[in-house]
């Protein structure tokens, strides 16, 4: 049963007066991630926007244990932390949460993550996907969507993003989920469920970024929801290989309601400014084929 906003715990592990940009999606989600783990956790974080949110020595903006690590090493660090906690008899005291951005996960961090997933290490890995290297000034990553202008794709990126949750699913890990920071209850439910499962749990979280995507900070939630409504972002989970749509995506799949055109989403953000109509059509075709596959998998699961 999906948790409702009023049922979310009134927890405050993310402290006000932190260093994140106004309207940053990370804070919205991190409040629910930490709440779902009731603060009984240790996070490990590579160089990223999240490092900035965490604050500079000697003050921390997050009221849970946090271990900073090098950019490519998040999943290996989480493996070491988990092993160290087991070895010292403290594994039951806290959940290990690795949390990194899309570049830190899908580009420079993918080797360590793949290794940890193959070993089925005991931690939750949460990728907050703000679709570029935002902390270093909006350079393209392997997860930047086609058409998006970044400081290294001035004419708009030509390639579609890599499908990281699918890559993780191919590792056969016990839990894979796709969520969005614009749906705090979905984030909460997925982290709460992941908490109860052993082994490597991977959660991919679309995270709108006002400064990097070029929109008014007030629209973080609205655009995050719009991304789901047009099928660019799909909310789902795969538990022991069983796929199901969740939340808004489940509703869209069930009712067969048509998706909002991708063009409507693209029009909201300056990163897509000047995107050629053919390029928009290509993205629409890509989204449509993916959406059919997701809905098919969801139905397939129901038929079983």
């Amino acid at each position, binding site marked *: 049963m999906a948790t409702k906003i009023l049922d979310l715990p009134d927890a405050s592990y993310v402290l006000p007066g932190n260093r994140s*940009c106004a309207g940053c999606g990370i804070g919205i989600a991190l409040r629910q991630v930490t709440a779902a783990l009731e603060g009984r956790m240790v996070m490990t974080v590579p160089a990223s926007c999240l490092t900035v949110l965490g604050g500079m020595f000697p003050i921390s903006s997050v009221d849970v244990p946090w271990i900073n690590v090098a950019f490519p090493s998040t999943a290996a660090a989480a493996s070491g932390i988990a092993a160290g906690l087991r070895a010292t008899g403290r594994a039951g005291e806290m959940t290990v949460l690795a949390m990194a951005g899309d570049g830190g996960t899908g580009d420079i961090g993918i080797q360590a993550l793949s290794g940890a997933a193959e070993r089925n290490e005991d931690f939750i890995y949460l990728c907050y996907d703000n679709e570029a290297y935002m902390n270093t000034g909006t350079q393209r990553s392997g997860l930047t969507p086609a058409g998006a202008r970044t400081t290294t794709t001035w004419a708009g990126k030509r390639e579609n993003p890599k499908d990281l949750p699918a890559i993780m699913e191919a590792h056969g890990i016990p839990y894979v989920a796709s969520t969005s920071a614009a749906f705090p209850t979905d984030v909460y439910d997925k982290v709460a469920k992941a908490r109860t499962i052993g082994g490597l749990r991977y959660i991919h979280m679309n995270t709108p970024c006002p400064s990097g995507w070029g929109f008014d900070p*007030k629209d973080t939630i609205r655009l995050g929801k719009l991304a789901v409504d047009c099928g660019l972002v799909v909310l789902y989970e795969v538990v022991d290989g069983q796929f199901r749509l969740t939340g808004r995506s489940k509703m869209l799949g069930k009712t067969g309601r048509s998706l909002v055109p991708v063009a409507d989403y693209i029009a909201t953000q300056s990163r897509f400014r000047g995107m050629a109509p053919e390029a928009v059509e290509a993205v629409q075709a890509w989204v449509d084929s993916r959406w059919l596959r997701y809905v098919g998998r969801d139905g397939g699961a129901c038929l079983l």
Partner: protein
Amino acid sequence: MAQREISMSKPAVGEAGATGQWRNKRPVMDAALCLAAKAGRVTCQFCWVYCPDGCIAQGAGPVIDLTYCKGCGICAEECPADAIQMVPEALHGACELAEGEEVG
């Protein structure tokens, strides 16, 4: 200075200072429109859940901490009753509210 010193922080609010100073618009809540305030109980709470900074305390109605509110305007945008307006700071002058003080 302790010889054991390593770079290891302790949690506290306001790591980046009074981030309310970043704001160019402030959220002003109209209790007459707020669903929770009108109902006199903790309902709705959209502004609370969507605040990226944890600057809004749950309540009937919710209370915005203007010392740290960065003025992103998500609360105003997401409020189903349009009870929060973003008002240019220039109209208010300097932020004179104490931490935790209620607005509106």
